[in-house]
């Protein structure tokens, strides 16, 4: 193949970039889901704030 | 009074208020003019003392200086309004939102127009290009470019006025939008000073007209959404 360097650079950055974005997106998503579950669990178990002591 | 006339009256009142505030010592014009002239001087240093190269680059430098200056102008016009919560008061008036936009636009046109009207002869002197033979085309370009810059600038100044990073965000948002305007103004100015040898002046002026109409309409239509918060 001629211009192999340019083809590798073109395909590598575009396909690799898409894959990298997808992996990062999945990780962001699972982190966000975990955090949101955590918050919900806390909200369920927490007792409503009592009146501050006079 | 018809709706249109009422809007025009409101817009004029807002623009008049801004003009009065400027005349009573807000000092936007002075500092911006100084800044833009300084930019033109520095462009001259950056390009070296070759008179021909400077004359060739002059239309582009002129319009870059006007664009940079207009960033400052529109930001200041909205900044003054946002300080002391004057914008909040303005929004509570029972007037059409697009009338407020048109008022700020008129003020912006006035300010950017003054900037351009001063910078044009400065460029003519500094870079040695003949302005007088082509003055009708130059004035038309200046007017159309001013309207477009003020339309986009007023809109984005409204978008960013309450943001913390507005000094950065306003140019970041506005500069890519005004790129076609810059291109058209530079080309029209260059065509005008060189006597329109390619006959393309009219095409660029048309593009400017389209840009102005689209941006004024889009700005007037959406500006209201920025205010109701």
């Amino acid at each position, binding site marked *: *193949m*001629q*211009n*192999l360097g*340019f*083809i590798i*650079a*073109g*395909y590598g*950055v*575009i*396909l690799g*970039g*898409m894959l990298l*974005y*997808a992996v990062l*997106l*999945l990780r*962001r*998503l699972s982190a*966000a889901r975990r*955090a*949101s579950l955590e*918050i919900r669990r806390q*909200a369920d178990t927490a007792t409503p*704030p009592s*009146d*501050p002591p*006079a | 009074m018809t709706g249109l006339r009422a809007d025009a009256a409101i817009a004029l009142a807002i623009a008049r208020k801004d003009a009065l505030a400027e005349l009573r010592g807000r000092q936007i014009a002075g500092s911006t003019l100084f800044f833009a002239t300084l930019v033109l001087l520095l462009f001259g240093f950056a390009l070296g003392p070759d008179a021909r190269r400077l004359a060739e680059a002059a239309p582009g430098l002129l319009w870059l200086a006007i664009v940079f200056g207009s960033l400052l102008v529109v930001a200041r016009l909205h900044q003054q309004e946002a300080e002391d919560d004057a914008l909040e008061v303005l929004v509570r008036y029972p007037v059409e939102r697009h009338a407020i936009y048109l008022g700020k636009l008129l003020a912006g046109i006035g300010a950017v127009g003054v900037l351009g009207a001063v910078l044009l002869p400065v460029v003519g002197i500094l870079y040695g290009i003949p302005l007088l033979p082509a003055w009708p085309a130059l004035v038309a370009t200046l007017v159309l470019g001013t309207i477009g810059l003020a339309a*986009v600038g007023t*809109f984005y100044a409204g*978008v*960013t006025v309450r*943001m*913390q990073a507005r000094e950065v*965000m306003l140019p*970041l*948002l506005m500069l*890519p*939008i005004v*790129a*076609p305007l810059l*291109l*058209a103004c530079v*080309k029209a100015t260059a065509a005008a000073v060189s006597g329109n040898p*390619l006959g*393309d002046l009219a*095409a*660029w002026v048309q*593009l400017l007209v*389209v*840009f102005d109409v*689209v*941006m004024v309409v*889009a*700005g007037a239509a*959406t500006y209201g*959404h*920025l205010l109701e*918060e």
Partner: protein
Amino acid sequence: MATRVLGVVALIAVVAASLNALFGVPADVNQGDAQRIMYVHVPSAWLGYLSFGVTALAGIGYLWKRDLRLDAVAVAGAEIGVMFTAFAIWGGMMWGRPVWGVFWQWEDPRLTTTALLLALYLGYLLFRRLTDEPHRRATRAAVVGIIAAVDIPIVHFSVEWWRGLHQGPTIGSPDKVLHPSAPGLFVLALVSMVIAFTLAWGWLMLRRYQLARIEWQMEEHGRLGRLSAARRAAQAAAMPPPDGAAEGV
């Protein structure tokens, strides 16, 4: 579940179409193997434009319905559109160097338009990050997105004239290279690549949308938490001070 299936299908499709584009199709007669870059460049450009179109429509929809789900669609479109637009520019540069002899061709209206497009939507994304309060952010992002969208055709025409009025058309832009009259194999390779990329795009959009929804819920929760904390603090402050501390008025 359906999203997961879409993801697997998209992955297989992209791999298969890429292998075909790299090794299956013969090299172009005029441009040689460099033309293979077009098979990733063209789908990237198409998806960039599609994403920004989605963002603009979602913005208009938000201003109409005031539904934050539409804002989540808008942010997904902007982020993924920026990625694909950057890919398109990168692919164009990698193609342009061997074929045109330069990475950057100022006379190509498409390239310069796309570069401005990238700048417009990078600004949009940055703008979103610097604005809090979901509805305010959604409103402003929507109007910024609409203005950006109406600017795109003007940018395109201005750059086209810029080239066309001064220098004659010197260099063919990518679409002339992929002329419909090209042999069927080339067209097939390109179409399969466009379909594969579009499937991947759909999966990315869905996932990015889900992320935006969760982030918004958490933001909302955080604000409610801060609000109740502030209320508690205010209640505590409203309590009478312990011993006559009302002196320094």
